[in-house]
């Protein structure tokens, strides 16, 4: 055993010396390789963490939402629809929800206005998200101007702001009283934006949805599982972000593989020929090439994964921000709850280290079976 370990260590010593002789080329290779691993790791960590965060947060979302559709568009729903829905067996509570969008021409941003179910803010006051406060430079006690549906301008006082840590759900929120909401949008008293339902038995949801659609044919029903599925599907591999980065990574590996498979440089051929002339076995040369591949790919893999983690969970995915921000004026600053599992690391390993290793197998076999005489004669 000891002899085996010593043999491996001797070959590693030689491999590292050989790599250091071509340090510029190998350093460039490790840098590009690390960048590819870093990008893939960042995307995998980010998408898994955000999907998980969404599924945990949206556990508190309404179990069922009923919207009224008129001429293919969502329309305010009459409050008397509540009675019709409550008559269906299995339906728990039914509540009217008041919410909408307000476009602020001052900064060109869209806000989400919400009337809470309980703990209404006083008339004339609002509670706002941090993103909005940042964009409009607002603080508690400041007044914010709103233009109502009839052109009348009225001011609402910022009573409170949401905590920074909740920005992922509250960044653009304006919590407003019911009377101010109706005054702003001119919504008739007998109407609400949509209805939310609580259902006692989750297995009855689809049956209840079918019954509502039969009783109220002008409605569209959205189930909670559909909300959750939306966020599961957003960042799947077909999504633009994943596809672009996967494509880039694959292209990089094709270049690596091409570089490796296209053969050895004259210097490498001479080195291998000399080693064989000095009495190295074919297995020794293969072992040398194996450790060469491992030294490069493992260095790049570990560094890339660690940097990817730091980027996503310590630096709030700062490199993805311009991509995610798009044309948004108001963008939330959020830190995702760290989440990695062995599955992600194994996926990354198979996406990065394995292709590189496979790409080096044939050249290393070719190198190992080289004829020393022909190489040394040039």
């Amino acid at each position, binding site marked *: 055993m000891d002899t085996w370990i010593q043999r491996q260590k001797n070959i590693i010593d030689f491999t590292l010396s050989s790599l250091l002789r071509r340090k510029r080329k190998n350093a460039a290779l490790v840098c590009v390789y690390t960048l590819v691993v870093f990008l893939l790791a960042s995307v995998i960590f980010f998408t898994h963490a955000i999907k998980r965060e969404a599924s945990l*947060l949206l556990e508190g979302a309404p179990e069922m939402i009923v919207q009224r559709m008129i001429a293919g568009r969502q329309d305010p729903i009459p409050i008397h629809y509540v009675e019709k829905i409550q008559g269906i067996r299995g339906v728990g509570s039914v509540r009217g929800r008041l919410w909408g969008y307000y476009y602020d021409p001052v900064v060109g941003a869209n806000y989400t206005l919400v009337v809470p179910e309980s703990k209404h803010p006083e008339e004339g006051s609002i509670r706002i998200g941090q993103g909005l406060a940042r964009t409009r430079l607002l603080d508690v006690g400041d007044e914010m101007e709103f233009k109502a549906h009839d052109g009348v301008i009225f001011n609402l006082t910022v009573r409170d702001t949401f905590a920074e840590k909740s920005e992922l759900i509250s960044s653009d929120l304006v919590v407003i009283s019911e009377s101010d909401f109706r005054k702003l949008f001119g919504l008739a008293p007998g109407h609400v934006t949509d209805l939310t339902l609580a259902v006692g038995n989750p297995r009855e949801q689809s049956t209840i949805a079918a019954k509502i659609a039969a009783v109220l044919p002008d409605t569209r029903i959205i189930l909670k599982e559909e*909300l959750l599925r939306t966020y599961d599907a957003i960042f799947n591999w077909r999504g633009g972000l994943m596809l672009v980065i996967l494509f880039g990574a694959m292209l990089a590996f094709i270049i690596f593989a091409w570089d490796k498979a296209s053969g050895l440089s004259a210097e490498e051929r001479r080195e291998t020929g000399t080693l064989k002339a000095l009495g190295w076995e074919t297995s020794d040369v293969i072992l040398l090439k194996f450790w060469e591949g491992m030294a490069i790919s*493992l*260095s790049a893999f570990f560094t890339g994964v660690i940097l990817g983690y730091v980027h996503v969970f310590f630096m709030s995915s700062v490199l993805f921000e311009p991509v995610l921000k798009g044309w948004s004026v108001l963008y939330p600053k959020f830190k995702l709850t760290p989440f990695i599992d062995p599955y992600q690391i194994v996926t990354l390993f198979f996406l990065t280290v394995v292709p590189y290793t496979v790409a080096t197998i044939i050249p290393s076999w070719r190198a190992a079976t080289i004829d020393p005489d022909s190489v040394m004669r040039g």
Partner: protein
Amino acid sequence: MRKSNLFLLYLLINITLLALLFAHSFLGENGGSHALEEKREMVRQYQLTDLCLFTEASYTRHLSVADRHTPFQDGPMTLEHFPSGSILAPPGKE
């Protein structure tokens, strides 16, 4: 020190760092459960349906309650033009 020993030490340090990342993730998950519960309570209280990720258009702000054809209704010449539309996968029925 031999180069091979340095290399093995380097690998060991990296494996330790990776283990520390797992520990950080595990602690963050448990330590963050209180903050998570607060946010979940907010979602419950305000009956929210979506994360505030893309605020550039109404149909990207509330993805789960938006119509699939909304982008085309914003204007007669409006194909999907918001950058986030190219990041998101189209909503799927599974």
